[in-house]
Every structure is written in structure tokens, then in C-alpha cells.
């Protein structure tokens, strides 16, 4: 435990939790403007969350505690990742837990919880969405893992903080072929995992075309609010990880107030820039047919594999 770690452990989850709706709002606004609409504004997700939180809680027939606990577990896993991974500060709050393998596995655990929640309703849409989500997850997780392992091989450790510090010490490593391949693979895996276009369309109204929307169909009121909040936070967490693994500059390395402030601002700017890029890309690509999604993910897995090989041979 160190001062910087404690500050990071408090600031990171609060910042990511509070900022997640803003990120979703920015994504929506950028997309609306590019499509020639005015949009609902960047604060729309906050208003929606407030509305949902005020509604009554509902238990669909035949569901069990698995259905009720799933949103909370999704939120809890994301919060743990926000505490331990290096977002604002390069020294994590809980050193031995900031392992990339643990972080990826925690994110997957949250997704699995939501899949089980969707299955627990016993409905057609729930099973459909859950099945699709699990298939995507089974392919996206290996890609995430192998892509980050490519960076770990170079840094000689699977600890995320060590990887980030190694990149800070030797900035030129970022432009190596292994890193670039890993970055490309990570982007695809993150887009698939968070359900953005071209894998899934968050703005679609037809449930049958959706992956995430179908699995979450029975959630309403505060439960849905927690699912939305946690999903937004997952996107923020993954974009933040992507940013800090490849462009860690600005991250606080000391506990000085200025350094921490710079770290916060840097993180917000990085996540927002990546978010805007995702939104812009979404306007220009169409959603893939579901049967093509595994091909896309298989491609990104191959990229990740090449990244590991490159970091072995070209080091």
C-alpha cells in the first residue's frame, strides 16, 4: 500500500463510475451530429438513469436470485477492475491484484453474470441474446488476453502497472510491430465485448437483431439502470486500459496533487478521444451479420497471435 495507490484506488472508480454516462452521452451526440440530427445532448444518459432509478422494481415470473444478482455482479467486477488497474496512477491500490489475467477474467465474469441473468428468464429473447453474447465472449476473451500478453512478454511481467511503467520508460516500444498488431486486435475485441457497431448496434430498436439488448430485455427500472451504468463503465474501463497500455503519458507517477490532477485530466481526455473515434467509426460501418462476427473475431485473434510472435522474434 502506498499513498499514490490509495488515491488511485479512490479516485479511479469514482471518476469512471461518474463519468461513464457522460461517455455514452458523448458517443450518442457525436453520432447524432454526424448523421445530421441534433441529438439528445451529452447529459441525456444521466436523465435516463435518474428516470429509471425512480421506477418500481419488477420481478419477471420464474426468475430467481441469479437474475437479480447479475446486474450487481456486473457492476462489482467493473468497480474492482477500476480500483486495481492503472488508470489515473501508475501504482495500483492492490499490487498483487493488478494482474492482466485477473483483470480480463473479472471483466469476463461480469459478462457471464449478465448472460446467466438473461438465460434465467427462460424467454426466447433472453436465450437468444445470451447465446450470442456467450459465443462472442468465447472468442473475444482469448483475443483480449493474447493481445495484452504480447505486451506482457515485452515487459517481462503480466502486472498491468509494470507494463505501463515499462512503456513510460521506453516510449519507442510503442511503435514496434508487435505493439501495433496488439493494438489492432485489442480494438476489435473491445468493440465486440462492449457491443458497438459493427458487432452489435446499441441504437437498434429491433430486439431480435441485438445481442446485448436481447439478453437484457427483461430488466426494467433500477435493475436496468444498474445494467446501463455498469455497461457504460465497462466501455470506459476498456477504453482507458487500451489508452494506458499504448499511450500511458500523463498518468500520475507520484502522489503530488498536480500529478494526480494531470492524471485525471489525461485519462478523461484519452477516453473521450477514443470514444469519439468509436462513434465516428460507427457512423461509417454497417452492422455485420451475426454469422460473420466470429470471422471478424477470428481475424483479430490471429492478429493477437502474430503480435505475440512478433514480440518474441523482433525484440
Amino acid at each position: 500500500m502506498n499513498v499514490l495507490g490509495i488515491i488511485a484506488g479512490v479516485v479511479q472508480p469514482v471518476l469512471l463510475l461518474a463519468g461513464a454516462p457522460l461517455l455514452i452521452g458523448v458517443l450518442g451526440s457525436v453520432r447524432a451530429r454526424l448523421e445530421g440530427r441534433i441529438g439528445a445532448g451529452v447529459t441525456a444518459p444521466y436523465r435516463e438513469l435518474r428516470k429509471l432509478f425512480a421506477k418500481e422494481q419488477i420481478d419477471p415470473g420464474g426468475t430467481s436470485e441469479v437474475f437479480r444478482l447479475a446486474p450487481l455482479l456486473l457492476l462489482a467486477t467493473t468497480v474492482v477492475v477500476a480500483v486495481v488497474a492503472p488508470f489515473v496512477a501508475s501504482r495500483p491500490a492492490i499490487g498483487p491484484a493488478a494482474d492482466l489475467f485477473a483483470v480480463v477474467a473479472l471483466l469476463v465474469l461480469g459478462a457471464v453474470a449478465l448472460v446467466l441473468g438473461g438465460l434465467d428468464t427462460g424467454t426466447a429473447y433472453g436465450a437468444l441474446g445470451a447465446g450470442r453474447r456467450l459465443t462472442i465472449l468465447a472468442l473475444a476473451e482469448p483475443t483480449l488476453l493474447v493481445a495484452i500478453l504480447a505486451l506482457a512478454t515485452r515487459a517481462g511481467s503480466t502486472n498491468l502497472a509494470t507494463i505501463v511503467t515499462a512503456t513510460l520508460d521506453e516510449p519507442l516500444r510503442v511503435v514496434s510491430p508487435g505493439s501495433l498488431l496488439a493494438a489492432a486486435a485489442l480494438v476489435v475485441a473491445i468493440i465486440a465485448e462492449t457491443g458497438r457497431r459493427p458487432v452489435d448496434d446499441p441504437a437498434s430498436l429491433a430486439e431480435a437483431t441485438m445481442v446485448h439488448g436481447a439478453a437484457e430485455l427483461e430488466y426494467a427500472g433500477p435493475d436496468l439502470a444498474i445494467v446501463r451504468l455498469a455497461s457504460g463503465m465497462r466501455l470506459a474501463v476498456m477504453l482507458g486500459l487500451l489508452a494506458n497500455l499504448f499511450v500511458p503519458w500523463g498518468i500520475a507517477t507520484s502522489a503530488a496533487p498536480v500529478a494526480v490532477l494531470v492524471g485525471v485530466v489525461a485519462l478523461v481526455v484519452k477516453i473521450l478521444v477514443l470514444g469519439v473515434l468509436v462513434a465516428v467509426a460507427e457512423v461509417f460501418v454497417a452492422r455485420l451479420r451475426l454469422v460473420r462476427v466470429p470471422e471478424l473475431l477470428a481475424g483479430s485473434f490471429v492478429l493477437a497471435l502474430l503480435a505475440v510472435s512478433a514480440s518474441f522474434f523482433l525484440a
Partner: protein
Amino acid sequence: MNVAATFLAAAAVLGVLAALAGALPDYVLKPNLRAPAAGFGTALTGAAGVVAGIAAMTGDAYTADVPGLLPLSGVTISIDALSGPFLTAVGVAAVAAGVYAVGDARSRVAQAMTPLFVVAMLLVPAAGGVGTFLVCWELVAATSLVLVLVEHRRSPEVAVAGRWYAALSQLGFLTVLSGLLMLAGQAGDSFAALRDASPSPAARGVVFVLTLVGFAAAAGVAPLHIWLPRANTEAPSAAAALMSAAMVTLGGYGIVRVGLDLLGGGTRWWWLGVLALGVLSAVAGLLRAAASTDLKRLLARATIGGSGLVLVGIGAAGLFAAAGDRVLAGVALTAALLQVLGHAAYTALLFLATGSVVRATGTRDLETLGGLRRKMPVTTAAFGLGALAASALPPGTAFISVWLLVQALVHVPPGTGTTVGVAVPVALAAVALSVGLAVAALGRAFGIGFLARPRSAAAEQASESPPVVLAGLGLAGLASLVLALGPTLVLPALGEASALAVGGGDHTVSGIITVQLGGIAGTFSPLIVTIALAVALALAIGGARLLFRNRTRRAVSTWDGGAGPPPRRATTFAVPVYGDGGTEGRVWRPALAALNAWGRAGRLLATGSVHRYVGYGFYAVCGLLVVLAVTR
């Protein structure tokens, strides 16, 4: 007094007594007493095996020679640190399966044979000579074959499974026999003598390949896994649990004992072969598991995947040892040994929970299950725990062994050479893929089989199993939990055992709360991650309670987007992977057809003409004389 040896002897005596109790006729021991006698006897055998294994892991070595017990070779018993994990794994599975069998074993043959099967499995890692090892190995194969065939009246499929199993286990025995006898012919019977012997490199290679075929068949590794889904589906649940959880790990033991210990490492291509087998089974097994609709078959295929991961660890250890990196080899082998222990605990749990489901519903088809969590809450919780433990998610059992394996692979210094540079990324990719596929396969099995709504009358009318069955599940669950939260209890001992096998330094793995690797940078704490997750979940639940304390949850019917009745099919979920043929259709059927054709071609030589046979004899003698005249 040697603890390991004492408890191993106790296990053997208890097991034989339990087998006798199971075999007693009804007028001596009433059937309602026979099941507890045999079942609890098996559990006690397993418990003694666990104690012996733990004693062996803490450095309680023992060697004994009983020359008169077996003709020609005698019996040699040798327990060392490497025997420990495997004794423990067999013991843990036997304790859970034994208690479970009290409530779910009607057949006298199964009751008599299960304890003998456990004793045979405990003696394999304790064998200290070629003769003893082969006898125990064959005893394992024979007793398990009887167990596979116990329910032969139920369906003709049982006979088919029995034939496949008998053929492959005996084929495996044959290759192990020829390999080990080749080695023993040069140096002597006892393992100690074999270690000191130095056969030529070519002879060592032949011995390794021969034994590898047999051990891979026993471990259920692709493409020799073909018996496993069949035998484990048709055997009674307790026996299937023992075969899947304990017996397959003995294949890994054989490879480590012969390859690393007796033959002293060997060259790179041996271990590349092991690694390739492991990679193939890990990915193919779990891929097929993700598309299975039969619950036991799904678990059997997941077992193939788990076995593959053990072989990846062993192969990586051998590869690193051959390349001279003893530290990394130690870490990789530690990962494999922890995977063996975890595999024994959670596979037993999953198979026994499935057995409990089959016992209550009479079906193991995911299509007709569903909605069991209301009727069978304990079984549902047990299967959920097993699925979590097996799918490498925190706080699971497999998570930490996979983490260790990844550590060994990631820390290979760049530029170690082309062979390692190609093998390691492929192994990493296979490990990552198998993790993702395991999540999909087991999450799907749990979600479809236990959650949602009942899809048949059998599932709707299911009732929870009796307490003794649940106690069996609880014991296996406890073992999984201990390994998930406190792997540091066993890791230092496993590290020592690995260091012994690969000849590395000591203190490969240390730490109490945090796992710390010696020689390479790697620290991780499964306990802290679990606590952090629990705290976050408690905060989330508490926060939700506090925020919504004035509101009651209203029960409504499901909306389902206005759709009709719930789907009755589980396969809407299955990932279409590859055709139903699988390995059997693509590899084994053509191979068997080719053998048949070869046999038929042989008939052309034998037309029934006596003149021709006399002619064969004449030309054979002439040919022999010519060969002797030329070579002598």
C-alpha cells in the same frame, strides 16, 4: 514410522475390505447396509490416500522392496514428492465419489469394484519398479472396464463404449509395456536403477514415444481420447467421476515420471510432441464441449480439454528443461500439478452434480432439463461452483493454475530460438482459447440445464437428492474452494516436487496470501482478488438495499418482447463447430476400415491349398538360411 507409507497401506487394506463388503451376498450383509459399507469404505480409502499424498508432498519419502510378492520382478514401492499430488488427487476424487455412491449405487458389481479401482489408482503413483507399475496400471484398466460395463442391460451403447474403452486402454497398456520393458531390459526393474542407467539417445527416444502413446491414451488426449466421452457417459456417475477426475491424471503422471524423472529430460522434440498433443486436446475438447447437448458428454469433453492443459504444462516444462531454463520449467510443471489437483476436485464435483441430476430426472439431455434451481437448489449450487471452478474465472480453482502456466510462458526471454519462439505463442494462444471456450461450454451447461424454465415433465417433477449424495457433492465442493482460495497451501510443496523433477532450484513458489514466484517476477493473490470482489459485491448489494429500501419488488409475468411461449430447444444455443463425425469419423473410422481391408487382403495368401502352405514353409526356411548365411 513413515506417515505416507502407513496411510497408503491403510488405504489398500480399507479398499480391499470395502470391496469385500460390496461383494458379500445379501444373506450375509443386507443390501441397505452394503451400499454404506462399500461407499464409506471407498471414502475412507480416499481419505487415507489424501493423507498419504500430503505427507509425500511435505517430503515424506519411502521405499520398500518385497521380492516374493510378484513373480520375476517382485513388488517395489517408492513414494516421493512427485507421487504426492497424484495420490492426493486420486484421494480427493475417491472421498467425494465414495460418499456419493452411498446414495446412488444399486449394482453390487459397482460397489465391489469401485474400492478396488481406487486402490489400484493409488498404487500407480506409489509404484517404484517397472513390474509393479505395469501390474497396477493394468489393474486400473481392468477394474475401470468392469465399471464401464456395469449398466450393460440399460442400452446397447454401453457395450459399444466398453469395446472402445477396452481396445484403447489395452492398446495403451501394450505400448507402455513394450516401452518400459525395453528400458528395464537394459538396466533392471527398479526406478532407482533406471535413473542411473544411461541408454543410447535413440533407445530413450523410442521408449519415450512408446510410453507417451499409452499415457496419452489414458489421459484422454486427442486423438486417443475417443473412449472418454463414451465410457464416461455410460459408466455409473460415481465411476465416471473417478475416471474423469482421477484416472486421466495418471496419464500425466506417467509422462512426468518416465520422461522427466526416469529418462532425465531428453530432447526438445519429445516435449514439442507433448505440447502439440496438449494444445490439440485443450482446444478441440472444449470446442466440442461447447456444442454438446448431453450433460455427461459435455463434461467428458471438458475433461479432454483439462487433460490437454495439464499436458501443455508438462510439455512446456520439458521444453524449458531441455533448453536449460530450470526455473521456468519448475513454474510450468507446478502449474501442471496444480491443474491436476484442481481438475480432480472440480471434475468430481461436476460429474457428481450431474449424477444427482440424472438420479432425479432420469435424463442428462440439456434439451429436456432446465429449471432445476427451484427443485434442486443444492445440486444447482454445486454445479454452479464446479462450472466457476473449471472455467478459469476468479475466484475459481482453474484460474490460478492457468495463471501460473501463463507466467511460465510469458517469461520466456525473447530470442530463445526458433523452436521455442514458435511453440510458446501457440501454447499461449491455445491456453487463452481454451479459457474462453471453457467459459462458453460450462456457462451454457449451467444456464440451460439449471436456470430458465423446465423443458420437460421429468425436469418439472425433479426432487432434491438425499443428504448423503449432497454430502458427496459438498466434499468435492469443499476441495474446490480450498484450492481456489488457498492455493498457497499446496503451491510451495508442488514447487518443491517440480524442482525435484526438472532439477531446478528450490523455492519455485512461495508466499501465504500472495503467490510469489522465485526467479521470475510474478506475484498474484487469489485471496485478495476474491476479497475485493466480495467487498465490491457487498457494497453494491448494500447500496441497492439502502437506495430501494422503501420499495417492494413486484412480481409480473415475463414480457419477452411480446413473443410466444418459451423455446423448448437448448440447441438454439449451440455453436455449430464441425460435423457429428468428429475425430471418430475422420480419424478412427478410416483407420479401422484400412485395417479391415488389410486383413481381407491377407486372405489372398490363404486359399486353402495344402500345397501352397507347404510351399510357404519351404520358402521361409530357405529364405532364413540365406539370411543367416549372408549375415553370419
